[in-house]
């Protein structure tokens, strides 16, 4: 497998960093290599946040994403800022609850109204990140189902494991 670089971007409070951690963890549980990094503003909520995961069979050198293969955009600002770094043959997964306008792009676009579904199905916007991860898994086939489930279970607190798993599955189901 060649190196796949994933960027998840949104604002603080959308679970962007957690999604990256779970993805990276699942990759490692699948016995591949992963590096996850993050950057965010000083505020707890609301500032621009991004989380990056590099996935590879080989040892990973440089840990930062320059051009990404997959962009998971959680809001309009993140999309507008990072679309230019998405490779031409890349994949864009957009949370269309928060993204109203997708600029013209060569990339393959998947529209997932994750925040809306999270609120309707689970009564909380915060599960949108798991829906997006579900969509990512279905689209890319980069991580195994087993590893994802274990990674979710190891990353969140006991009482919300089930809801997170359900949100993840819902995200998979949303991909046509």
């Amino acid at each position, binding site marked *: 497998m060649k190196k796949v670089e994933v960027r998840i971007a949104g604002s603080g409070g959308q679970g962007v960093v957690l999604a990256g951690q779970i993805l*990276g*963890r699942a990759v490692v*549980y699948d016995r591949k290599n*992963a590096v996850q990094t*993050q950057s965010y503003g000083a505020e707890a909520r609301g500032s621009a946040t991004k989380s990056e995961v590099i996935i590879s069979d080989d040892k990973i*050198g*440089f*840990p*930062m994403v320059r051009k990404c293969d997959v962009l998971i955009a959680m809001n309009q600002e993140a999309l507008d800022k990072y679309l230019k770094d998405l490779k031409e043959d890349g994949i864009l997964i957009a949370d269309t609850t928060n993204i109203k306008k997708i600029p013209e792009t060569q990339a393959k676009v998947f529209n997932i109204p994750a925040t809306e579904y999270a609120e309707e199905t689970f009564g909380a916007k915060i599960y949108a990140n798991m829906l997006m991860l579900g969509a990512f898994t279905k689209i890319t086939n980069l991580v195994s189902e087993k590893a994802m489930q274990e990674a979710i*279970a190891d990353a969140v607190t006991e009482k919300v494991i089930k809801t997170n798993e359900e949100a993840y599955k819902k995200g998979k189901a949303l991909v046509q």
Partner: protein
Amino acid sequence: MKKKPERNTHFWQGNEACAEAAIVAGCRFFAGYPITPASEIAEYLGKKLPIAGGIAMQMEDELASIGAVVGASWAGAKSMTATSGPGFSLMQETIGYAFMTETPCVIVDVQRLGPSTGQATKCGQGDVMQARWGTHGDYSAIALSPNSVQEMFELTIKAFNLAEKYRTPVILLADEEIAHMREQVTIPSLESIEIVNRRKPKLGETAFFGLEEVPPMPTVGEGYNVAVTGSTHNEYGIRFTADPNVHKRLVERLNSKIQDHADELAEAETHSIDDCQIGIISFGCTSRAIYEAVEKAEAIGVTVGYARLKTIWPFPEKIVKKLAKTAEKIIVPEMNLKQLYYEVQRVAGGSSEIIALNKIGGGELITPEELTAKIMESVKD
């Protein structure tokens, strides 16, 4: 509750790997004061050290933290603190005391951008010289530099082992990037990990500060009469604040017990250092750019050798000299303004041209593209 399976492969943050390694190495006392980007080490140890039978304390500041670490070491515990540049500066007086009193301890400095509070959440490598010369007087420091989360684990254990072996403070010179990134860490079986413990005195031994290269260290409260002082002292701990010979003997030994083992302490990941056109000396997060850059350069026929230093101090002269013998030019990429550069230049002694590649601000790493461009530029000139 379903029991989670025991794993030996983890997906840890650098700081978490450091904390886990400390426990494996036998650390049973931690004292610190929160500071970005080192706080997670205190957080993890606050949760986990008590379970391992140790103590983790949040102190009122960094001065108290390093004081408690030195005290705990004399009380017999392997001890550690973790901080970043501003806190490392505050600790320097007592770090000097730890050198002078030969107190084994580990000081983790997760570098961020300075001077002063600088850019608190952003990565830098500006404490290279502070790790060597931060406190006053003549002394020799050991400083190790990890470039992956796996190495945060491995070098933390090594730091404890060296501290115990040489009875000296050891600095783990990490950086924000490595401390905050998450990567897999594979833990070997605990029995296969080498753990070094300080030599304690045998009954009747009284020279706790000399007569041999690394004297035995008693634990206070076990019946040995031991005076621990930062003032010049003789082999038995008695203060001699004017005698030139006692001072010379003590301080020369404090230096030679490290410097005489410089080659043995020198650890580096190397590639083609005995046959290359262009050399690279790198360390920490910056070194993550070299693999791709070297691959690109070699693809078009430029032979590049590198030494990625795991040991920063004592400076691995033998390895750098070897590279300088063959490389026409040596590039030194670092996220500071030429701190390691002059050290490489000193050791190369004019046999290679040393080329700086520096980047500071915003925590932006030197990219493989920037390094490749520097290699190409160096070949052309």
